[in-house]
């Protein structure tokens, strides 16, 4: 089972290591983790995607709540929320596959953001499923490098 934890934490040094350390110490999985400031500069939001059985997922929430730098936790499944992930992919291209790559990008609403004689960089910002699909679609060509942000998530407006 997958769960998304949207965790508001004090924006202090060392907090990321405390939270990450909690996951490693208790053998909880981190599928992805993103951190950034919020509208309040004293507060950061960590979006953590984790998977495990029900008891583990509940323990994660309880243990996070115990951390004294954690202000608030919201948990939600992928269906209750809007999730996005940003990915940059650098690929090798040649005359024969250039057209195909561009078509794939168009179909996937991905942009080509940088280019050289034989390399191009593709940017996609979409749901975690579609970014994963993008990787699959490009699997036939030579991928040089990939950078992903991990999942960012907020609950749907109607859920508020």
């Amino acid at each position: 089972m997958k769960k998304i934890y949207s965790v508001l934490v004090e924006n202090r040094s060392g907090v990321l290591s405390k939270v990450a350390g909690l996951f490693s110490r208790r053998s909880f999985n981190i599928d992805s983790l993103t951190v950034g400031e919020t509208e309040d500069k004293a507060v950061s939001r960590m979006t953590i995607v984790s998977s495990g059985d029900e008891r583990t997922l509940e323990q994660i929430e309880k243990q996070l709540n115990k951390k004294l730098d954690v202000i608030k936790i919201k948990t939600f499944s992928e269906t209750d929320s809007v999730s996005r992930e940003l990915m940059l992919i650098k690929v090798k291209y040649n005359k024969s596959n250039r057209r195909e790559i561009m078509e794939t990008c168009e179909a996937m609403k991905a942009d080509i953001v940088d280019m050289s004689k034989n390399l191009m960089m593709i940017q996609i910002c979409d749901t975690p499923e579609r970014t994963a699909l993008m990787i699959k679609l490009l699997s036939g060509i030579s991928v040089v490098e990939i950078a992903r942000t991990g999942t960012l998530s907020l609950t749907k407006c109607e859920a508020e």
Partner: protein
Amino acid sequence: MAEYISGADAIVKCLLKEGVDTIFGYSGVAIDPFWNSVGKTKIRQILVRTEQNAGHAASGYARASRKVGVCAVTSGPGATNLLTGIATAFADSIPLVCITGQVESDCLGQDVFQEADIVGAAESFVKYSYLVKNARDIPRVVKEAFYIASTGRRGPVLIDLPYDIQNSKMPDFDYSDEIPKMRTYKPTVKGNLVQIKKVAEELNKAKRPLICCGGGIHLSGAREILREFVDRNSIPVVSTMMGLGVLPSSHPLYFGMVGNNGFRTANFAMRESDLLIMVGARVADRAVSSPDLVLEGKVLVHMDVDPAEIGKNVGPTIPLVGDAKTIFEDFLDLKLSCRTEGWISRLTEQKAANVKAYKTSDEYVNQALFVKKLSESMEEDAIYVADVGQNQLFSCRNVVIKAGRFFTSGGMGTMGYSIPAAIGARAADEALKERRAREEPEEMTEKAVIEQNEVKPGDKMRQIVAVCGDGAFQMSMCELAVVSQYKLPIKIAVMKNHFLGLVREHQHFAYHDQYNMVDLGDFPDLKLIAKAYGIDYVRLSKDSEMEERIGDFLADERPMLMEVNVDPMDLTTL
């Protein structure tokens, strides 16, 4: 213009305001400004002989006094030596404030002499930690540290103090009397009344209710009120190792310690009960061998001040978050009608049938019998501190607790705990006596009244006995110097079996007597050790001498070391 004081003076001012009277620790240049400031006050400094024991002594102090124990050590190796002390306190939820000196702020991260990232190293076993970067933060940090350590699920808090911060000047301040405002920390103390009523209904329905108490009862000071509650409603009680002493061993409603090292009757009661109320206990692996089995056919209520403990090991039917004392106060307000006569007489019969006979010999001392006789001979309110190993299992299974206490390193199982913890407990009683002598009774604060309820008033301090094996003894025998130097009349019984007995026992079963790394030989000569430290010595060599020697051992108020000659091949499983 505002007056300026040093960071070190500031921290000591805060400690005085928190009622700190004793600090255990070790010196070193990085913590020297702090000790210099402490030296200007009446705070008692106790110099232990290795930093780990500063943590254990503070732990003994905290458990004996129900105040926060304080220890302070230097940076680098001083701080890393303290780690085991911190982890031990964390595993048993003991409130400590641990202060470590640190290299100058400008040098942090440069691997300079005696630098260690202690905040990082201690992260997974502190309740919270601070690295002070500005002296002006000191009043807030200390206030929060004591509040965090002593509320909710108690635990150690670390304050790392760079050298330059201790020396820097800051404006003098008024120390706040208010509870610190922290948006991220609001421990639940009061139990949810709806849940409490649900539990009350179950108690009325239950035919075989049972309360299993853990260390949380002692930590919250709920012993008296729990006793009133079970006496009034006739509910049988068992305890975990950390809970020992919740009721006197002879109490008719008390049926012993649970777990794989526990009593048959207690485990029978756990299995047979139809309503099991776990209070302040983690339902941990040593207490309940396979947690899920407990649940079959019964209602499980789990009360704990830490919501994360509830459901961590077993899923309860009724969770109840809150402080044990507060919850039982609420329970006392409710009228209950428990019908438990049949259940209690069944358990009482079992208990009587399970009384075992002790085999005596002319060659050795029977450890189980020794623990029983020793604890029976101890004073009403005495403190028994057990170490770790075979002696711990013999102790917790045979100790007779009257109105006193039983301390041990339960969660962590740290060898060498008993002597420094006994030192800390004695220092706590001495500090309390000192305070009483100064204070007029009518001027006593509310805090002091609570302490008085826990620690029996009077000029006589509690008798404190540490029981350890020869392995654990050698891990902390350097502290005998502290016993002598500070004239702390604790009693130390060493069960000398020439082995690391519990591991030897494991190798006996697991590897058919192929012994590795467990033979201690015949060292040291305990009589000479006692003499070297100026401590009286007595040897108990066989069962027939037991009463007389125990009498000598406990006779008067001076430190004493007793060597107990036990069979190296003893098994705790018998």
